[in-house]
């Protein structure tokens, strides 16, 4: 136990490290930069559009947490399966879903990736193996284990990466799923995105167990904390977990220490935290760290990176245009996509 306490002690360095001798290639860094910028610009725009009431309902932004997804994409293969909670715009974006389809979903348009039926909390894209977008806290954790069960059953060698918030680990479903996943050695990577808060409730106020990764140890699951403002750390941790899963050794629990710069959802003024705390995290912004490494290694100039950022903004602008010009679902769509059976006899009066 002394050992595990040590592991947790210093996972959050004051500044994200600029890599003078990076272990990843130029291509990887450039991919990270491009995609993390796209996530950031997309979410900034979504926030603005929410303010203009073009986007409605609940809308949970990913700003600040980009490394948690970007580092995992580069560590996995395109046949691996992804699932998460309702803070779900960035995952499909990084997996290659057309930004227009995600924006159109936010706009509730028929061209959205869930046909305007799911909205912000329920993005799905089978093309890229993104299995949702789930709204009941913790409920996607058993689903993630089940997705992995199917991969093992079919002996595919693929795995499932299953994201959840820090709040979700207090749900029974999380514990039941972890126990079975470990007992049955399912190829699943459980990722806790610990951004410090579940709505207004800090992790400290929810349990005596605040090193969330240690929860996996109750089930003898390999479990690690990851300073996830660093995309390199995320990649390495996920790659290790993936190797374990593919070797038939079963699941891993990763606790990503991260932060959301915005409130829980658009209606949350986030009065429960201090400005200093927010500024501290912003000062080790994962995108800025990637940028600094690229510059230090002279892989691109300041102008070229500027150009990439412009392109991200352009993509988002195109996505908004596509969303705005798309039609709402026709009312006749009400009776589609509910049963696989095409002529299900609905009650009509």
């Amino acid at each position: 136990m002394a050992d595990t306490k040590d592991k947790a002690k210093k996972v959050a360095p004051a500044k994200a490290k600029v890599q003078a001798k990076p272990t990843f290639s130029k291509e990887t860094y450039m991919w990270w930069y491009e995609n993390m910028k796209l996530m950031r610009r997309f979410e900034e725009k979504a926030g603005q559009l929410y303010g203009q009431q073009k986007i409605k309902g609940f809308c949970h932004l990913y700003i600040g947490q980009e490394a948690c997804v970007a580092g995992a994409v580069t560590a996995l293969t395109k046949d691996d399966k992804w699932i998460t909670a309702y803070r779900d715009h960035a995952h499909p974006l990084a997996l290659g879903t057309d930004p227009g389809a995600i924006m159109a979903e936010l706009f509730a348009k028929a061209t959205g990736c869930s046909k305007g039926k799911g909205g912000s909390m329920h993005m799905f894209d089978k093309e890229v193996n993104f299995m949702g977008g789930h709204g009941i806290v913790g409920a996607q954790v058993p689903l993630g284990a089940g997705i992995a069960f199917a991969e093992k059953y079919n002996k595919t060698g693929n795995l499932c990466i299953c994201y959840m918030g820090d709040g979700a680990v207090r749900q029974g479903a999380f514990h039941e799923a972890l126990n079975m996943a470990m007992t049955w050695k399912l190829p699943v990577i459980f990722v806790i995105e610990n951004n410090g808060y579940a709505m207004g409730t800090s992790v400290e106020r929810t349990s005596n167990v605040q090193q969330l990764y240690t929860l996996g140890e109750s089930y003898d699951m390999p479990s690690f904390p990851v300073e996830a403002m660093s995309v390199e750390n995320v990649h390495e941790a996920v790659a290790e977990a993936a190797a374990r899963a593919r070797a038939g050794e079963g699941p891993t629990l990763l606790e990503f220490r991260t932060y959301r710069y915005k409130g829980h959802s658009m209606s949350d003024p986030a009065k429960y935290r201090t400005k200093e705390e927010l500024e501290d995290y912003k000062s080790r912004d994962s995108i800025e760290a990637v940028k600094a490494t690229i510059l230090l290694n002279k892989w691109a100039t300041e102008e070229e990176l500027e150009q990439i950022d412009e392109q991200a903004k352009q993509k988002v602008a195109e996505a908004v245009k596509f969303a705005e010009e798309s039609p709402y679902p026709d009312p006749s769509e009400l009776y589609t996509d509910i049963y696989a059976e095409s002529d299900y006899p609905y009650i009509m009066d």
Partner: protein
Amino acid sequence: MRSIQFREALREALSEEMRRDERVFLMGEEVAEYNGAYKVSQGMLDEFGPERVVDTPIAELGFAGIGVGAAMNGLRPVIEFMTFNFSLVAIDQVINAAAKLMSMSGGQYGAPMVFRGPTGSAGMLSSQHSQNFENWYANTPGLKVVVPSNPYDAKGLLKSAIRDNDPVIFMESEQMYGDKGEVPEEEYLLPIGVADIKREGTDVTIVSFGKIMKVALAAADELAKEGINAEVIDLRTVRPIDYKTLVESVKKTNRMVVVEEAWPLASISAELAYHIQSNAFDYMDAPVKRVTCRDVPLPYAPTLIEASLPNVARTVEAVKQVMYKKA
């Protein structure tokens, strides 16, 4: 009379009962330090302290069960679900524990407590966040189910629910918390299981409850313009149901339309139609009609929500059908 918001009426009910009875406490997600996800419990932590206004982790199954255990052992918990969609995580403790204790123990133990929170749709939230389980809970013997439609009823009924010796499911709506209504300063209680005639009429009985009462009342206004005089009954409680008031009304109007937000199959409207045909058959001049949410999960897009939820136009049309009038 002074006018206050629905959420303030609930807060007054909670606070008054907590002042009156030490055994009453409030427990749920974000109820204390955040002052309530929908600000129902604003300021209550300051007045009652963290022993009686208790923030929980996101652990509905656990804290619902802790509530039941506390109730078995002499306390009077009020368990808040952030919405009743999340009560499904806890439903085992509600149905298999709270509702069964009295019977299983041969009357030795019960669960005098309240489970409360918002029910139903609340804008563009898609299907997991837009559900009505009034009929699910109402189906279960051992529970009582209260679904108020205005601040006055909400306050009087919540006070009764807290004092009730049986487990009460108390269902509100995000879309009503800001509604204002007259609520007297003086204390009052309203009885559980008694419907309220919100508008007297002679031509047709429109029955509803909860937030959808707004649709029923607006439809009655529309119909009045065309000379149709609708009686509007607010059930207020869907277990037990005040069948007597309904039957009396139908004996007078000879026609009934039920407006309900839940899905149609095995809904409260189905139950009311059964009861009326069984107990007032000879008085009926037309079959009972109902307006419910369409038989589908409620999607996100506004066009689909509009096509699915009960509304004034559909209610007016249903009334015209039972009156054999052209739409």
